[in-house]
């Protein structure tokens, strides 16, 4: 039996539905833009009236039971994934570009003498030596040699300072980035709480979810994220509450992991923090003191050097810490250790700081990291390998030195970052200075054609002292080896007394005797000075490998930019708002409203007729 005014109710539902639809269209048009997923009304028919006489069921209208949003979670995940790879190469390219501009090898080299890079600097220096060789008795040319050497010193220092500054800048950026990650995490956590509270009532918090997704978009550029949203109500997950009214029973838990480690879990967050490394704990001997390590607050470790880390954070760390694997990792036995002094035989690098951290490995996989002091480099006697010794502090009780297996000093980052280039420059100045000062190559053997230091005549110098042309800092600084390129310079004494420069092996042979100078020139021609060849070849290889790496980073950046854009376009295809579509919807709802309103008029007329005019005699 139908109720009175039954039709009005049905029409009324139409009006409300149309109004609801128009509201959603309104909202879509107003909020369209990046990150907004378009919303739609979920509507269903109201329970129909069953006339039990078999004539059928009368529909009672429709109702809106929810507002949904079009979003493809799979595409979101794909977007975030690719974006963090993009971030990594973006940051690498940006940092390496600054480094390349510092080297500036090609600038201004239109005239062969007009460049500003180190290849030009070395070229001018050897040119001045050539001029001196043809005028060995003229002191004006000696002054010229020392001046070009001084210019060389400026080039090297400039490069050194540029690299150090950039390392410091990258370090600061790491700190800022960690702050931003924390900030985003905090916002995500608070949104999680709001969404959970709102969805208790059963309504979907569409716009809040959109905001959260936007935050994760930003976070994914900085660091690689993985999102896990789980349904904590098992019954709900099993499908035991299918009705829309029961949606409030769902307990969705939103978890954000960065680099595979828990970051945000529901409303809780594990914040990151940066801790400056104390002096002596540098990863590389050339590092600036006080570079930041990243860890979770409370001390839990953050895998900042995991190969899986991506995002701009990874790019920054690559460039800041990348040493191309040149740390020391040697097998040692218990026999190399006697109480407190450890002897490390035949190491492949000799520029370690005199104190720092050393990691000791036991056969039974126990690992400790302790400080060492007093590292002494011993070049070894002829026929024996060089080695160095260091002193380690007291051992913790659970470590058995009898089972010593391996040691490591410094750690690997397989990227050619700033420490790698600092190392290259170190090698450059040390090999160059040794070759010029002593006529020896990097293995301590005499360079063919060069005059050894012992054969240079210094009888014209007061005190018969041989003043080396180049200094690398003196032995009073125990870390001079690893900081050679910072302290590289022309000997001040020679700058003030250019006539004390030794140019021949026997002053009595004559003022034009130029064998020592020809020996200097032989250093330039010596194709075994570096593993890469001549001095110029080594310099070209430095800027060459930087160029190649940067080119690759730029290429990957472009590539991944395209990938990210195309995934974004796919996302927008699902969730974007199309104005024409909304207008069509708008017209549809408008017509529904108009028709429903018209229907009410009709029914009103019928009722009016029935009530007021029927039976009126």
């Amino acid at each position, binding site marked *: 039996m139908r109720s009175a005014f039954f039709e009005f109710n049905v029409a009324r539902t139409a009006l409300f539905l149309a109004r609801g639809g128009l509201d959603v269209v309104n909202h879509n048009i107003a909020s369209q833009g990046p990150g907004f997923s378009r919303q739609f009304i979920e509507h269903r028919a109201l329970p129909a009236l069953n006339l039990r006489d078999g004539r059928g069921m009368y529909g009672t209208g429709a109702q809106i039971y929810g507002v949904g949003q079009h979003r493809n979670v799979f595409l979101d995940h794909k977007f975030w994934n690719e974006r963090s790879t993009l971030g990594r190469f973006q940051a690498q390219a940006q940092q390496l570009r600054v480094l390349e501009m510092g080297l500036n090898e090609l600038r201004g080299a239109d005239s062969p003498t007009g460049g500003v890079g180190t290849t030009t600097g070395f*070229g001018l220096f050897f040119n001045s030596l050539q001029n001196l060789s043809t005028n060995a008795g003229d002191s004006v040319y000696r002054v010229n040699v020392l001046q070009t050497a001084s210019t060389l010193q400026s080039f090297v220092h400039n490069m050194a300072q540029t690299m150090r500054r950039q390392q410091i800048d990258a370090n600061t950026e790491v700190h800022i980035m960690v702050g931003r990650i924390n900030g985003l995490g905090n916002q995500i956590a608070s949104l999680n709480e709001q969404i959970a509270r709102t969805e208790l009532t059963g309504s979907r918090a569409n716009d809040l979810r959109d905001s959260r997704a936007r935050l994760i978009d930003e976070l994914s550029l900085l660091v690689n994220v993985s999102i896990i949203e789980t349904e904590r109500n098992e019954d709900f997950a099993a499908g035991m509450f299918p009705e829309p009214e029961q949606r409030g029973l769902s307990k969705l838990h939103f978890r954000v992991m960065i680099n595979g480690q828990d970051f945000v879990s529901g409303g809780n967050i594990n914040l990151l923090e940066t801790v400056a490394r104390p002096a002596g704990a540098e990863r590389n001997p050339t590092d600036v003191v006080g570079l930041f390590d990243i860890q979770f607050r409370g001390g839990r470790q953050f895998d900042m050097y995991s190969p899986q880390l991506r995002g701009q954070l990874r790019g920054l760390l690559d460039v800041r810490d990348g040493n191309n694997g040149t740390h020391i990792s040697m097998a040692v036995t218990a026999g190399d250790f006697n109480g407190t002094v450890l002897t490390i035989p035949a190491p492949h690098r000799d520029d370690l700081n005199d104190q720092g951290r050393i990691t000791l490995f036991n056969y039974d996989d126990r690992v400790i990291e302790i400080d060492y002091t007093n590292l002494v480099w011993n070049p070894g006697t002829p026929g024996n390998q060089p080695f160095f010794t260091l002193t380690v502090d007291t051992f913790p009780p659970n470590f058995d030195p009898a089972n010593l297996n391996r040691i490591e000093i410094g750690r690997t980052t397989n990227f050619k970052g700033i420490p790698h280039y600092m190392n290259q420059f170190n090698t450059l100045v040390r090999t160059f200075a040794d070759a010029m000062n002593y006529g020896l190559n990097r293995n301590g053997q005499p360079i063919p054609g060069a005059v050894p230091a012992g054969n240079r005549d210094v009888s014209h110098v007061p005190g018969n002292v041989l003043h080396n042309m180049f200094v690398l800092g003196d032995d009073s600084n125990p870390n001079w080896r690893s900081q050679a390129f910072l302290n590289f310079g022309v000997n001040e004494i020679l700058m003030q007394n250019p006539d004390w420069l030794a140019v021949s092996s026997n002053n009595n042979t004559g003022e034009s005797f130029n064998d020592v100078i*020809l020996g200097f020139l032989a250093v330039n021609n010596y194709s075994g000075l570096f593993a890469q060849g001549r001095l110029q070849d080594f*310099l070209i290889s430095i800027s*060459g490998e930087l160029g*190649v790496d940067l080119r690759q980073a730029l290429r990957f950046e472009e590539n991944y930019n395209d990938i990210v854009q195309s995934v974004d376009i796919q996302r927008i295809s699902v969730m974007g708002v199309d104005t024409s579509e909304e*207008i069509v919807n708008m017209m549809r709802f408008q017509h529904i409203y108009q028709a429903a309103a018209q229907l009410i008029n009709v029914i009103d007329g019928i009722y009016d007729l029935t009530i007021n005019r029927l039976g009126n005699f």
Partner: protein
Amino acid sequence: MRVTNQMMSNRMMLNLTRNMNRMDNLANQLASGKRITFPSDDPILAARALKFRTSLRETQQYMRNVGQGLSWMGATDAAFIGVTEVVTNMRNNFNSAINADKQLQERQAIINTISQMKAQLGSFMNTPYAGRYVFSGFRTNHPPIFEVDQPDLVFAVEQHFRFADMETTNVIQRDSSNPLNAVQLREGVRIIKLAYAGNIPEIEVSLAGWTGNLVPFNAANAHIADLTAYDPDPDDIHFIEATGELILGSNVANLLQSNEMNVRFVREGFTAGELNPKIYFNSFDISESTSTSADALDVFGYTAQDLIDYNIAHFHNDIGSITDQRLEFEFSFNTRIPINTLARNVVTDKLHADLRELIRFVNSMEGMLSNPQALEQAIRNAEPNWTDEQVQAALTQQIAAENSQINTAMQNRFNSMLARIDTHYQQISRQEADHGSRMQRLDMIRLRLEEDQLNFRELISDNEDADLAEVATFMAMARAAYEASLRVGASVLQLTLADFIR
């Protein structure tokens, strides 16, 4: 697939950005004229560019060196021309001096000319280039021939002599005790001439197998008056200080055929025109020596530390060594060429000594002749009975005889000198040929370096310069694409359904 406005606008922005990037790159190439600005634009190209630039810079420096070398050798060349001309002139003069008709005065005139020429040779050896002496080896601040007197210098000098250096010739002496037979002609005297005459207080001679004595004749006129001076025993050597001559006995001369003679001596004070021992010989400057050794020639056995302690400078000239005092410049990768010639190989000390002795000899002949009045007096004293006519006849005969002896001696000397000057001339020619071939080689290097320079410039340009025509074409294309994308985007983005609903 569902396409929304946002997708279309995103795509348009993406393409627009790409187009702008391309145009930016091309504009940069056009403006700078270079294909790359940073090594990362094209690392291989950049590495090549740096390598070429380095090679070009080095080539240009080598060319500067070649310029220096050629200038130096040019100065040497001019000196060589002068020297060969002078020596040829000398030879002609000797030729005319041999002529039997020449009188003493004429020969003396010739000798004056020779003396001038000798001085000219000295000035050629002292040729300077940019304030340095080109023939002095490494000691470019010391002239090979002294230009001013050096009375305070004392040197210990070492010389070597071979059989070819020995001259067998005639000498004239004057026996004042025998006025009627004063002029003594001695033939077949074996003479070795030291580089210096006079002021030689110490001397020692070493020759393998020689067991005789070295007899010094230190009197200032021993060469004129001491008749035993030029007559040594077969095993002896006479040293005549005033002329710097060593007279060898016959056996000694035979020994010399198979061995080299080594002579060490001390010379006090030097005059202008004499050889500079620093440049010519293995020598020691003992002017300021504080050594207490009685024998100054011990200095040849001193160690380096001794020399320092005693304030003695050693001027080492390793005669005959190929590498000694070779001034080398680098003209190409590991290519060094010596650019200098040594004075002691051009105007050798033997040539210098020969000329000196000849000049002295001829100039001394006038003093050998007897004074006619004194001779006449001596004849009268010896033969008081002779008439004036007899005396006159004897006088004339004596004078003629004397003149004849002197004539013979001088002819002999000039003859000998002619042969010797030919040998010296050959030596000079050899040096000139060596110098000439080196100079030619340097010229070839210069040509090659010039070509290299051109090549490198071309390579650099090929490598990095942007082909402006090509780039301009690409630029036009990029601009057209940019314009098209803007226009299409503008027309598509503006339309929505709202425009068509009344």
